[in-house]
């Protein structure tokens, strides 16, 4: 018998299994599936920020060409909205047309359905909606009245006497930071097609979890869970915005009323209006340290806005609970309810804005201590969870800094600011730490041994563009000990059973656990069989709830070190990032090709967060100013320099798959590294994002300091 070298599966770079379909255009996205008798819906959004709908002039548009129906709070079917599902209660905006109140600008007030999308749009834009308008308040800022501590167990975490430790510290930082309203706005706008077929509701959608969306739609429309099927084959980005949103609810509502398939696709501006966003934050960080850099006091308070409908906490202050220990450690969140849409999770919710504040403050502390920023972080490396006291499953932050510093050329850096010039550009370098939780949630998966020697994996996972389908193919192949070409992974279908969503950097870990466990179960059964596979195959199915319950309680997180070099022209305010390096300790990396791409993508988003992204609210109307990609700037190609992302070994001994998840951590700390580099270049601390030219110029005019 000859032996051949086994093909490497997990750990070997693989292009996406559906890559060819995607780049040739053969992959169909949610709004591209043809249907017979398809009708098209168009949402009408409120143009006032607070009040009541007095009248909807539907008669005038019902006679327009192609119009089939106009749904609004006066005639829409009733929904059940007081439920809690996989990820908590549904977003208030999905209670489509259930009352006449308008809680914010852009609230859906009507749905026009017509034979073609153009007819629907024309009628929707012609629809006259009258409002009883009330004064609104969308002004978010630190120190404003009306703030409150949310009734959330994790809103506040504290140990020690903060004021006393601050008083006995020899070096202090007390600084306020702000981050603006930011939007996901994935490349593929939200779109859903709903139809009733043989007594079942079928929805073709683009989302982060078909089981989640199917479950919520069943609740909303009071349907048996088994009578709803949601599919989401290809997804053009999600980032937290693609859960249950008005597009699915409107499509289902209209399909139910009209007894024919209905598609509802959002425009870019509607995506900005009704699919959630990251709240602006106002944060205060107070640090007190001994002369050797050891923290005595760590205080972080973070304020964010929410709607008047539901509290949503942007958990910025969670970051420090993992990163740094101090004798006194106080972190707290506060909210203010405004006439604004309800914010939602957006890439690295909490950690993205939180790391900007804390990692900037650490840099300020290093400056005051005259200490290297990396040495300061090493000095405060905790042995166990700073607040929990639990051991870390693995914590390789210092390894990331060590490798990053070596590759970036950090050694010998002159810490003094505003010393390096190249033509009109001042140059500087900065660094920051990153972390994000590594969670997992119960999921089911099945693996079938097919008679032709192949294997089919079924799991209601979602590939939001990350390469999850490919990663699961590699994981399954390794677990089955077969070549990946023999494995077909089917995802994006709620009929495959409940599984965790593509969110919270928990997708790949949760799904891998389920797939490995089903594959192992199948191998056991195949070992007992006589080798014959019946025509329907042999299927093993598992649920990881028990497995996860047995996992020891530990601090489980990914870590990373971010480095950036910037060039700043203080005469024009232009900031250019020249290079970035991120080194991460994120468990086992399944597919280096797509993992690198995901980490680099996160870092680019961090660059974009540092320099560009900002949704501006018009105080008078309460709406977003310029809600499109001309008004909401994201980094352009020319802004993005050479960006390197890499990782160090990070074994997690007690974890069955060793995967930690990499969806979020790339963005964490990136904006702080850039902002710290801007200080190093210019000598000016910028504590408000984004670092716009006018802010750089203004700081130059008023002189450094502050």
């Amino acid at each position: 018998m000859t032996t051949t070298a086994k093909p490497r599966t997990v750990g070997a770079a693989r292009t996406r299994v559906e890559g060819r379909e995607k780049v040739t255009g053969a992959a169909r996205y949610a709004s591209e599936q043809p249907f017979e008798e398809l009708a098209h819906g168009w949402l009408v959004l409120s143009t006032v920020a607070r009040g009541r709908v007095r009248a909807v002039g539907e008669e005038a548009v019902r006679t327009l060409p192609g119009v089939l129906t106009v749904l609004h709070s006066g005639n829409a079917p009733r929904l059940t909205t007081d439920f809690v599902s996989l990820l908590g209660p549904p977003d208030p905006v999905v209670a489509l047309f259930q009352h006449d109140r308008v809680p914010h600008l852009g609230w859906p007030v009507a749905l026009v359905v017509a034979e073609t999308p153009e007819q629907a749009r024309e009628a929707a834009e012609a629809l006259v909606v009258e409002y009883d308008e009330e004064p609104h308040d969308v002004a978010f800022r630190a120190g404003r009245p009306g703030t409150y501590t949310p009734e959330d167990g994790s809103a506040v975490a504290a140990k020690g006497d903060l004021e006393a430790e601050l008083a006995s510290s020899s070096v202090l930082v007390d600084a306020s930071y702000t981050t603006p309203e930011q939007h996901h706005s994935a490349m593929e706008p939200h779109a859903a097609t709903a139809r009733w077929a043989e007594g079942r509701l079928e929805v073709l959608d683009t989302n982060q979890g078909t089981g989640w969306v199917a479950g919520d739609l069943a609740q909303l429309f009071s349907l048996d869970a088994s009578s709803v099927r949601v599919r989401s084959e290809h997804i053009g980005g999600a980032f937290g915005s693609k859960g249950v949103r008005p597009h699915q609810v409107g499509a289902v509502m209209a399909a139910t009323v009209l007894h024919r398939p209905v598609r509802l696709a959002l425009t870019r501006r509607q995506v900005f209006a009704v699919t959630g966003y990251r709240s602006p934050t106002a944060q205060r960080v107070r640090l007190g340290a001994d002369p050797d850099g050891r923290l005595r006091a760590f205080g972080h308070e973070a304020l964010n806005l929410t709607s008047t409908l539901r509290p949503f906490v942007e958990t910025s202050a969670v970051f420090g609970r993992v990163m740094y220990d101090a004798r006194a450690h106080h972190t707290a969140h506060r909210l203010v309810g405004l006439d604004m849409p309800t914010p939602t999770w957006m890439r690295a919710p909490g950690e993205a804005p939180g790391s900007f504040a804390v990692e900037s403050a650490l840099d300020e502390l290093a400056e005051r201590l005259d200490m290297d920023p990396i040495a300061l972080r090493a000095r405060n490396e905790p042995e166990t969870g700073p607040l929990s006291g639990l051991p870390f499953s693995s914590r390789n932050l210092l390894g990331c800094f060590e490798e990053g510093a070596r590759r970036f050329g950090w050694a010998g850096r002159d810490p003094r600011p505003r010393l390096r010039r190249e033509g009109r550009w001042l140059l500087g370098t900065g660094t920051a730490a990153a972390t994000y939780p590594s969670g997992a949630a119960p999921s089911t998966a099945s693996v079938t041994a097919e008679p032709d020697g192949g294997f089919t994996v079924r799991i209601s996972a979602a590939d939001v563009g990350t390469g999850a389908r490919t990663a699961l193919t590699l994981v399954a192949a390794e677990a089955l000990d077969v070549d990946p070409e023999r494995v077909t992974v089917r995802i994006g279908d709620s009929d495959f059973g409940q599984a965790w969503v593509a969110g919270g950097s928990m997708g790949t870990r949760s799904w891998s656990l389920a797939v490995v466990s089903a594959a192992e179960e199948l191998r056991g059964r195949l070992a007992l069989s006589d080798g014959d596979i019946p025509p329907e195959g042999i299927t093993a199915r598992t649920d990881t709830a028990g497995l996860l319950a047995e996992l020891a309680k530990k601090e489980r997180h990914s870590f990373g070190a971010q480095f950036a070099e910037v060039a700043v022209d203080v005469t024009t305010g232009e900031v250019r990032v020249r290079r970035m390096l991120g080194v991460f300790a994120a468990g086992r990396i399944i597919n280096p090709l797509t993992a690198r791409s995901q980490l680099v993508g996160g870092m680019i988003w961090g660059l974009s967060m540092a320099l560009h992204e900002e949704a501006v609210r018009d105080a008078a109307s309460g709406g977003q100013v310029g809600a499109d990609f001309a008004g909401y700037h994201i980094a352009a190609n020319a802004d993005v320099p050479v960006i390197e992302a890499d990782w160090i070994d990070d074994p997690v001994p007690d974890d069955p798959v060793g995967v930690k998840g990499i969806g979020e951590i790339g963005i964490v700390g990136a904006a702080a590294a850039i902002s710290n580099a801007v200080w190093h270049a210019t000598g000016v601390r910028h504590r408000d994002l984004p670092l716009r030219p006018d802010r750089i110029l203004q700081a130059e005019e008023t002189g450094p300091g502050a």
Partner: protein
Amino acid sequence: MKEFSYQRATDVEGAVALLDADPDARYLGGGTNLVDLMKTGVERPGRLVDVRELPLDRIEPTAEGGLRIGATVTNSDLAAHPEVRSRYPALAEAVLAGASGQLRNMATVGGNLLQRTRCPYFTDTSLPCNKRTPGSGCSAATGEHRNGAVLGASAHCVAVHPSDMGVALAAFDAVVSFETAEGSGELPLADFYLPVGDTPHRETALPQGALITAVTLPPAPVAARSRYRKVRERASYAFAIGSAAGALDVADGTVRDVRLAFGAVASHPWRARAAERMLLGQPAGEAAFAAAADAELAAAQVLEQNAYKLPLLRNLVVSLLTELAEEAAR
């Protein structure tokens, strides 16, 4: 979307006749601005007359030694033209500083001059805007106006003209040729755009239904040493928050000729004549350049959010003219 008809014009006379007969018709060039505005409902024409096939796509030398640029020449072709690059380099740089490669392949010279402001209130039909809906009010003056005008604005409108190309054309005294049903005409760029006053919706002095046929650059030896600098909120693919086109002729350390125009400061490309007058015959140097910029900006009126434009423009002028002076000294 409103339904509209589409016709492709094959000769200038026919195109002008179509517009003359239908007040609801609009010329369609590259469509890079008009089509966007139609999607958002800002523009709702009933008929589009596509003028891109008209024989107006040539760049030719004039008898006087200037250049005549056909109205349907694309931005890409304009920026790549050897005569433009050697004799009016700031114009080529300005064009390349705008939009993206794909858009520049579509956009035309005539359309560029007629593009509308990107003020976010102008493009949002749910909000007041005097330029879009006369008499409805200016949301920007009291709202978001970080990119608002600092020169020549009024309480009725603080929007800025978005063109980069136009800034260089203004610096080089371009003349716009047009055709109407009554015959042909010409407008120097300095008279092409109307003051804002209380009629911000009236943007140009073009007669109703006029078709731009060409833009002529008079000979300008000074333009051979010229440059365009644009500052925006990201490195590419954004409209200017401040820009400057400059040309400088220095002999024996003295300014013999100078051209200067600003972008993103007013409702139209802004020719900095006060600065030019101040510099002529003066010793070239940072102090003179800064004083000239200050002279031009003396009339500026800033709003709450756009005061940064003054140091920005001043710094741009100093740095741009200093570079040109250093170049001349080499």
